């Protein structure tokens, strides 16, 4: 029998299921390399794990990052964070990250080399799909799934069908990973990739930096996908060299692999995109945003809180002032990104412009703290979700953009292209 062609997603899952080949739709049990939880999902996972009453299969494989409501926003959050911290101490978890040394989980894990190409990663957080940018299979699960996997070292998956997205052409100025993924979600809708793998390819993806690739895979879940994935190349290998804590394996889709559907996008001349309330698929080019007056701008999150994002924001904000009616909140994704931003003078630019700069936290992204919206307020955010009430009051609004548009809008007071504040 000849070789059966497989996608990169199938190949990684095959390798972790101890098989030569896995078929879309097949239920498999797969070994997991990394298991992730945060201060919101870990308490439930811990409760369920303790009901099983066994040891963690490999304490080094469990990563816990208290990033959502930390630094603790109220007493209840403090109690939850404490329960998680106690658990980490009790089980001697080497990969528990404390306030002041942590970051937003999906910025932190790749940066710390905890996730590498070829891995299978599950996280009790839907944006775990971010790590697909490394050529890994990464997907979100619930707390109970995580608890079971902490005991077993494996979990079950239904092998997803793959959708292939080929990005070709010469996008316009200020267009980055965020715009490419918003464009794709705008085309296929928030359930366009339900249960599927989204595989991103083409010259535009190859030209993207690792930061841009993380942004794209981060939002695969916003189209309903199980995972987002990009084949590893020299950029990927350079990125993991010197930081990867475990050996990596490079997988690629076979040229004759089978896809459920192939989307071919010529993004020549694509403008920065804006996702309007209350859904990430309500996408318009920034020039068609109309007059949207805003109260707040948030630059940060696991989507766009990386160094390249901060550099872009600083480029737009340099020598400018935040509009008098706008609060600009900037949140570096990790301590390391923060330190580098200090070193490069980006933080100086932000503070001079009149922005509030915070320690790494999810904070306002999920309406937790550090910038919750009042009734009727509007925000531009570089985050990934603009659902009803996501950033605060159910009658507030969130518009999703890239960091350059967000910074420009903070200066103008309404949603504008960076070209308009130059």
């Amino acid at each position, binding site marked *: 029998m000849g070789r059966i062609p497989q996608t990169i997603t199938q190949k990684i899952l095959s390798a972790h299921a101890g098989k030569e080949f896995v078929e879309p739709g097949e239920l498999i049990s797969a070994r997991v390399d990394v298991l992730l939880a945060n201060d919101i999902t870990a308490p439930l996972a811990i409760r369920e794990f303790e009901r099983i*009453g066994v040891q963690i299969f490999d304490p080094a494989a469990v990563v816990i990052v208290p990033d959502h409501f930390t630094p603790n926003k109220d007493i209840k959050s403090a109690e939850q964070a404490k329960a998680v911290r106690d658990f980490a101490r009790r089980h001697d978890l080497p990969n528990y990250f404390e306030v002041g040394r942590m970051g937003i989980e999906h910025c932190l894990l790749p940066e710390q080399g905890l996730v590498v190409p070829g891995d299978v990663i599950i*996280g*009790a*957080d839907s944006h*775990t799909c971010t790590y697909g940018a490394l050529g890994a299979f990464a997907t*979100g699960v619930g707390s109970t799934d995580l608890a*079971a996997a902490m005991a077993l070292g494996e979990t079950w998956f239904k092998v997803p069908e793959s959708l292939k997205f080929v990005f070709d052409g010469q996008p316009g100025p200020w267009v980055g990973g965020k715009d490419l993924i918003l464009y794709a979600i705008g085309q296929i809708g928030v359930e366009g990739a339900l249960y599927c793998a989204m595989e991103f390819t083409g010259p535009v993806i190859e030209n993207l930096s690792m930061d841009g690739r993380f942004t794209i895979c981060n939002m695969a879940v916003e189209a309903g996908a199980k995972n987002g994935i990009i084949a590893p190349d020299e950029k990927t290998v350079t990125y993991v060299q010197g930081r990867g804590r475990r050996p990596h394996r490079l997988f690629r889709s076979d040229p004759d692999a089978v896809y459920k559907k192939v989307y071919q996008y010529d993004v020549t001349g694509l403008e920065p995109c804006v996702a309007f309330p209350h859904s990430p698929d309500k996408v318009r080019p920034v020039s068609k945003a109309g007059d949207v007056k805003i109260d707040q701008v948030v630059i940060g999150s696991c989507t766009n809180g990386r160094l390249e994002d901060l550099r872009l924001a600083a480029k737009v904000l340099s020598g400018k002032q935040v509009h008098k009616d706008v609060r600009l909140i900037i949140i570096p994704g990790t301590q390391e990104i923060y330190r580098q931003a200090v070193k490069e003078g980006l933080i100086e630019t932000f503070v001079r412009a009149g922005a509030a700069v915070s320690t790494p936290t999810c904070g306002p992204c999920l309406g937790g703290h550090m910038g919750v919206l009042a009734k009727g307020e509007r925000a531009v955010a570089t985050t990934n979700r603009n659902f*009803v*009430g*996501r950033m605060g009051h159910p009658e507030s609004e969130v518009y999703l953009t890239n960091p350059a548009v967000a910074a420009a809008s903070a200066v103008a007071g309404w949603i504008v292209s960076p070209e308009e504040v130059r």
Partner: protein
Amino acid sequence: MLEGTVFKFGDNIDTDLIIPARYLNTCDPAELARHCMEDADPTFAGRVKPGDIIVAGANFGCGSSREHAPVAIKAAGVACVVAKSFARIFYRNAFNVGLPILECAEIWGVAAGSRLQVDLANGRIKVVDGGQEYQARPVPPFMQEIIAAGGLIPYVKARLAGGR
């Protein structure tokens, strides 16, 4: 056989609507239940009765992975959610926490406030007054095993005890 009154919700009901993040500083089911569906229908938690049924459109439970969402629905007394389709993390979570869910593409025809009978074993759904019947998609055998074991944790315990 379950029987309950239908509460109807649309497409793409995300987990922020099911249980807003502002209440995630606890994982106490009773407290989560008090805010269940709050941003979709603030009156829901006050009106829902034990045994009632949620009927929804496509992609129910999309967004965040928070298991607090099926926990809140279950603790609010909802006996079953029938939707055109579910987001995948919510689908796993519902089975894992023991909230019965059924996928049925035609269910959208059912009116809010009507009484439904649901047979979880075979996926038959019947409108009490009117008699229309619907057939939900069969639950995969593996998920049935989890349900039969009483949820994922008892399933894992049994598996570990069996040395498999």
